[in-house]
């Protein structure tokens, strides 16, 4: 067998676009000045950082001075939550059961420090009910943090409604938009968002760089002490080339968003329908329509996710799973458990996330091969009902 690799794990990370890479390269070797330096090289670097800040701001409807560059999505989440808890009155945080670990583990840390955290449940599609947010708010609530779109099952959360509720209650609203930025339209004012986390490598930018949007007037503590970078909020010499790359990547992603969303969702829906038609005992995870355009997540009963992933990898298809074996613990993904799946079904999940390079032929190939792989594993499974086994085989 000699065919190309089909990378369908774009929710994990994406390839850097060639235009982004070429925009970055001069800032390593030619214009390598420190943006804090007074000389020409330093000034050029400073201009490049500020230009990227404008590009990022424009993509989410923010002002440039509301954008703070960070080391990535997890850092932005950590900073937003801890930084606000640090300076704001109140000891209660509202979040959801399906957040990324960067939010969940930060909240768990704060619980140990004496904060109270409400982890709101979600419906069968993984959606938070805005009414639950409203009911959870009390006099002690200092922050509401609900993700814009789920990284595993792709469900888009009703953050405009949640933002409006938080605003009416006078409570800052943070959203982890790491999966949403570049994939669906995001406007911090329309969504009533006060803080927003994003990460460049999710939209064909480089790894190790992200940003936190902090609405003007929202006060949080600095994340790193030192120099005056990022307006005294996040010290350390700027990751110059990566920041330039992030600016370029988000500019392109925002401009092409509609076009890609249309193409991805058509391929995604074709794959979902194809699988449902050819493989029995499958389940779509996440909302059927309110989901990220590039996200496919299904459970295949009677089989285990890691085996499925490895078999796909053997034929060149790269995906991911929420099974225990891929999470490094005995429990399957907290998101799949939160939408009500029993453990044994959650173990059999497969996530395929499309990207710029994904073609119709790739989808055809997966559609053709997946039923065979699932059947091979089911024939091997003691859970697979005997009545489905061909008696005369």
């Amino acid at each position, binding site marked *: 067998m000699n065919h190309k690799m089909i990378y369908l794990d774009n929710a994990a990370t994406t390839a850097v676009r060639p235009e982004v890479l070429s925009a970055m390269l001069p800032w390593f070797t030619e214009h390598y000045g420190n943006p804090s330096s007074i000389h020409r090289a330093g000034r050029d670097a400073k201009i490049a950082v500020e230009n990227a800040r404008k590009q990022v701001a424009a993509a989410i409807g923010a002002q440039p001075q509301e954008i703070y560059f960070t080391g990535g999505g997890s850092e932005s989440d950590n900073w937003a939550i801890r930084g606000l808890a640090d300076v704001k009155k109140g000891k209660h945080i509202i979040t959801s059961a399906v957040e990324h670990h960067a939010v969940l583990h930060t909240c768990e840390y704060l619980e140990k420090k004496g904060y109270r955290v409400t982890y709101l449940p979600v419906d069968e599609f993984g959606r938070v009910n805005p009414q639950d947010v409203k009911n959870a708010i009390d006099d002690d609530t200092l922050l509401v943090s609900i993700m814009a779109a789920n990284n595993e099952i792709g469900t888009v959360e009703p953050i405009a409604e949640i933002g409006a509720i938080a605003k009416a209650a006078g409570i800052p609203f943070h959203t982890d938009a790491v999966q949403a930025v570049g994939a669906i339209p995001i406007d911090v004012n329309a969504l009533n968002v006060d803080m927003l986390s994003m990460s460049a490598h999710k939209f064909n930018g480089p790894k190790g760089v992200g940003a936190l949007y902090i609405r003007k007037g929202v006060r949080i503590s600095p994340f790193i002490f030192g120099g005056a970078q990022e307006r005294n909020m996040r010290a350390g010499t700027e990751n110059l080339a990566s920041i330039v790359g992030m600016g370029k990547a988000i500019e392109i992603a925002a401009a092409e968003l509609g076009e890609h969303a249309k193409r991805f969702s058509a391929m995604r829906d074709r794959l979902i329908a194809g699988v449902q038609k050819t493989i029995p005992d499958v389940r779509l995870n996440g909302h059927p329509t309110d989901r990220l355009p590039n996200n496919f997540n299904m459970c295949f009963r*009677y*089989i*285990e996710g*890691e*085996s499925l992933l*490895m078999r796909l990898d*053997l034929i060149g298809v790269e995906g991911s799973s929420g*099974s*225990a*074996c891929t999470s*490094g613990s*005995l429990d*399957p993904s907290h998101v799949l458990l939160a939408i009500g799946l029993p*453990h*044994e079904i959650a*173990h059999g999940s497969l996530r395929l996330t499309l990207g710029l390079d994904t073609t119709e032929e790739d989808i055809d190939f997966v559609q053709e091969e997946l039923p065979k792989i699932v059947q091979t594993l089911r*024939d*091997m*499974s*003691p*859970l697979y009902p005997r009545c489905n086994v061909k008696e005369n085989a």
Partner: protein
Amino acid sequence: MYTEKVMDHFENPRNVGEIENASGSGTVGNAKCGDIMKMDIKVENGVITDAKFKTFGCCAAVATSSMATEMIKGKTVEEALALTNKQVMDELGGLPPVKIHCSVLAEESIRAALEDYRRKNA
């Protein structure tokens, strides 16, 4: 993260299936943790002449089941009872630390099948 031998036994598992009128069979693990192994053995004159398995689980679970069946075929019941998870692991060229429990399940499934055989022949 997996050795070539593990991948070989995962890709081409030996002895998948069930034995009709097995001399002994045992099922261990549970779906909650994501691993279940069912082991069937055929014993003739105190010697294991055939072994087959069915496994719900990860790559390492499939590979250890496959290797374990290969290792007990031709062995006496007493010899097979002495098989340890470490021997199965060594034969596979090792397993990542988080996957060691899979080899424990393989050992346990064989023991369960052997105990079932002994019960039936007590």
